[in-house]
C-alpha cells in the first residue's frame, strides 16, 4: 500500500531524516496558527496518490500572505481526478542542489538495491538515460542491519558526505517498515543541511497487519470485500466476469478473452480449496458489477470437487449467464448439476472463453 507524503515524512522524522517544517491541514483556516513558523514563502502540496502530482497542479508555491487563497484554490481542485482533502503546507527551502535516492528489493540478486543520483527532482529513468554516469547503485545483503560505510562512500562519491547517514537512515526505514519502495526525490542540500523534500513509501501488502495498517487504501470497496473472502481481485473495464483458481490460470483466462477480442471485467482468483460457499460468494461478487453481462468460471485442480463448485454456482442464483469449465474430481456429478439448472459446462478453457465472448457480441 502506498503511503501519502505526509505519512512517509512522519516516519522519516522518527528515524532522524530531516524534512521541511510543515503542517497538514484539512481546511485553509487550520494554517493560520502555523504560518508564522513557516517563513515568508510556503509550498502547498496536495496529499493525493497520483504520479506526476506537480505537473498536474497539485503543488503550488505562495507568499505567506497569499497562502490562504492558494489553499482554497487547491482544496477546490481535482488532481488527475482525485479530490484534495488534505494539504501539506511546508516552508520553502533554500535549495542548493537536488539529488535522487531510492531503495527497492532487486529480484535478480535477491538483495536490497540502493540507487543514488546526482540529479534529483526528475524521473530516475530520465537521469539514467541522459547521464548514466550520474546514477550509482549498491546492493546490500538482506542480513545486514546497516549499509556498510564502503558502500555509502561508493554511492555518495563527490556529493556532500552529510548524505551518507541519510542513506543509512532510509535503509532502516525500508527494513523496519516492510517497504517495497522507499524513495526521496528530491533529496536536497541547503545551508542548514540535508532534507527530504519529498517522500514515498510503499508497504508490502503481506506485512500491513504487523505494521499496524488495517485498511488497504489502494483497494476499492469491492476489492476489500474480495480480500475478506480470501480472493485476489482486480477490477478491469470490460463486460466479461472472470473467476478462476490460481493467479496464473486466471491471468491466462483473461489473456484468452483478449485474444478472442473480448474484454474482461475483472480478475478473481478464488484461491485454493474452492468449496461451495466460496464459489457462491465469488459469483455474486462478480455479478454485482453493473457492467458484467456474462461470467466465465475456469477451475482446475486435483482437489477441487466439481459437484461442490456446481452447487455453489447454482446457489448464487444470479441473473447473468454463467459459462463453466471445471476439471477435477466428480466432474460428471458437477456437469449433471449444472445442466439440470440450465448452465453451460464446457471441457476446455478455450471453449468456455469463446462462448463467453460470443455471448456478449
Amino acid at each position: 500500500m502506498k503511503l501519502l507524503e505526509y505519512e512517509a515524512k512522519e516516519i522519516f522524522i522518527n528515524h532522524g531524516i530531516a524534512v521541511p517544517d510543515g503542517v497538514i491541514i484539512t481546511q485553509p483556516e487550520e494554517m493560520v496558527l502555523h504560518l508564522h513558523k513557516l517563513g515568508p514563502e510556503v509550498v502547498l502540496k496536495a496529499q493525493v496518490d497520483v504520479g506526476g502530482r506537480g505537473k498536474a497542479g497539485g503543488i503550488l508555491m505562495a507568499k505567506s500572505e497569499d497562502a490562504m487563497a492558494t489553499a482554497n484554490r487547491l482544496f477546490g481542485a481535482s488532481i488527475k481526478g482525485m479530490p484534495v482533502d488534505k494539504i501539506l503546507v511546508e516552508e520553502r527551502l533554500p535549495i542548493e542542489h537536488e539529488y535522487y535516492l531510492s531503495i527497492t528489493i532487486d529480484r535478480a540478486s535477491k538483495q536490497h538495491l540502493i540507487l543514488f543520483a546526482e540529479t534529483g527532482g526528475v524521473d530516475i529513468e530520465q537521469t539514467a538515460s541522459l547521464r548514466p554516469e550520474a546514477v550509482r547503485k549498491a546492493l546490500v545483503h538482506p542480513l545486514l542491519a546497516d549499509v556498510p560505510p564502503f558502500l555509502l562512500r561508493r554511492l555518495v562519491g563527490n556529493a556532500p558526505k552529510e548524505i551518507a547517514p541519510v542513506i543509512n537512515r532510509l535503509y532502516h526505514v525500508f527494513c523496519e517498515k516492510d517497504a517495497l519502495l522507499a524513495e526521496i526525490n528530491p533529496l536536497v542540500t541547503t545551508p542548514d543541511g540535508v532534507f527530504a523534500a519529498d517522500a514515498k513509501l510503499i508497504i508490502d501488502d503481506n506485512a500491513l497487519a504487523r505494521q499496524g495498517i488495517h485498511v488497504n487504501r489502494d483497494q476499492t470497496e469491492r476489492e476489500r470485500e474480495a480480500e475478506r473472502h480470501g480472493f485476489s481481485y482486480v477490477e478491469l473495464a470490460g463486460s466479461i466476469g472472470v473467476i478462476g483458481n490460481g493467479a496464473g490460470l486466471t491471468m491466462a483466462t483473461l489473456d484468452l478473452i483478449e485474444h478472442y477480442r473480448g474484454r474482461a471485467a475483472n480478475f478473481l482468483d478464488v484461491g485454493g480449496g474452492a468449496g461451495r460457499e466460496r464459489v457462491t460468494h465469488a459469483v455474486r461478487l462478480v455479478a454485482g458489477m453493473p457492467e458484467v453481462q456474462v461470467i466465465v468460471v475456469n477451475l482446475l485442480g486435483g482437489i477441487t470437487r466439481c459437484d461442490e463448485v456446481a452447487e455453489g454456482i447454482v446457489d448464487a442464483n444470479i441473473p447473468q449467464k454463467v459459462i463453466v469449465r471445471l476439471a477435477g474430481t466428480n466432474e460428471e456429478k458437477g456437469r449433471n448439476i449444472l445442466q439440470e439448472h440450465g448452465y453451460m459446462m464446457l471441457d476446455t478453457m478455450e471453449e468456455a472463453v469463446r462462448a463467453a465472448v460470443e455471448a456478449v457480441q
Partner: protein
Amino acid sequence: MIFGARDDGIIVQGATGTQGAFHLDLMNDYARGAGGRGVVAGVTPGKGGQVVHGVPVYDSVREALASHDVVTSVLFVPGKAAGDSIMEAAEAGIELVVAITEHIPVHDTAKAIAYARTCSCSVVGPNSPGILSPGEIKLGIMPAQLFSRGNVGVISRSGTLTYEVVDELTRAGIGQSTVVGIGGDPIIGETFVDVLDRFARDPLTDAVVVIGEVGGNLEEEGAASTDLPIVAYIAGKSAPPEKRMGHAGAIVEGGEGDAASKIRRLEALGVPVAEKPSEIATLVRDLL
C-alpha cells in the same frame, strides 16, 4: 530427478494445520505408489507428540532430525512464521526446503533465503505448488493424476496453470521428467536460471517448458543462460500496469516486466513462445 531422490526422508513443517495434514497424507500416498520413503515426520512448535496420518510430530526440526534421517522439508507454516521456519530447517541441516506458503512478507523471504544459503540449503518457493517427478517423488500439492513420465521438464511461477499445461502435455503423449513450481512471489529461492541449470545436468530431460508471467525479468535471464531447447508461455498479456495480478510477484512496475517485452526478448533469443496454453504441446513436439 533434479531435486531429491525417491528414498529421501521428508518432513512437513506445519504438519498439524489443515493444509499440511491433508497434503502430508497425499504425499505419502504418492510415495507408497512410487516405492519411496515419503514423509517420516512432522514439525509444529507446541504440538510435539501428536500423530498426523500415522506420522509423528515434533516440536522442532532438530528434534525430528534426531530420530529420523531427513534431507527435505515441505513447508506449510502460515505467512508470518514461515521465514523463521525456513531458517530453522536450514540451520538444522535440511538440504532442500520447498515452501508452499503464500503471503510471506517479502523482507522475511529475502532474509530467510539469504540465511539458508549460508547453510548450503536450497529453497524452492515460497508461494510454490512444489515439485513432482512422475513415478519418483512428490514434494508439495500438485495433483499427481495429471502427470506422466517422460523427458520434458517444466518450470513455472504458477500452480493451476502448470496443471493445465501438464494435463495438455500428458494428453498429447508428452511425459514429464520433473515439474517445478518456483513460486509466484517477487523474491524466490531457486529461479529459472538455477532450475534450468539443474535440468541441463539431468540425463532424463531433453527439453523444458518455461511458464512465466508478468513481473521482473527472470524468464529472459533463464532463457539466456541455457543451451537446452525451451518453449515458453507468458501469462498476463492483458494485465494492466501497477496492478498485482493475484501473485505478489505478478506486477508490471515502472514500465518493466510487461508480457510484450518479455515475449520480445525471449523470441530474440530464439525461444518459441506459445500464444495460448493449448499451443505449448505442439511447440514442444516440434522441438523434440
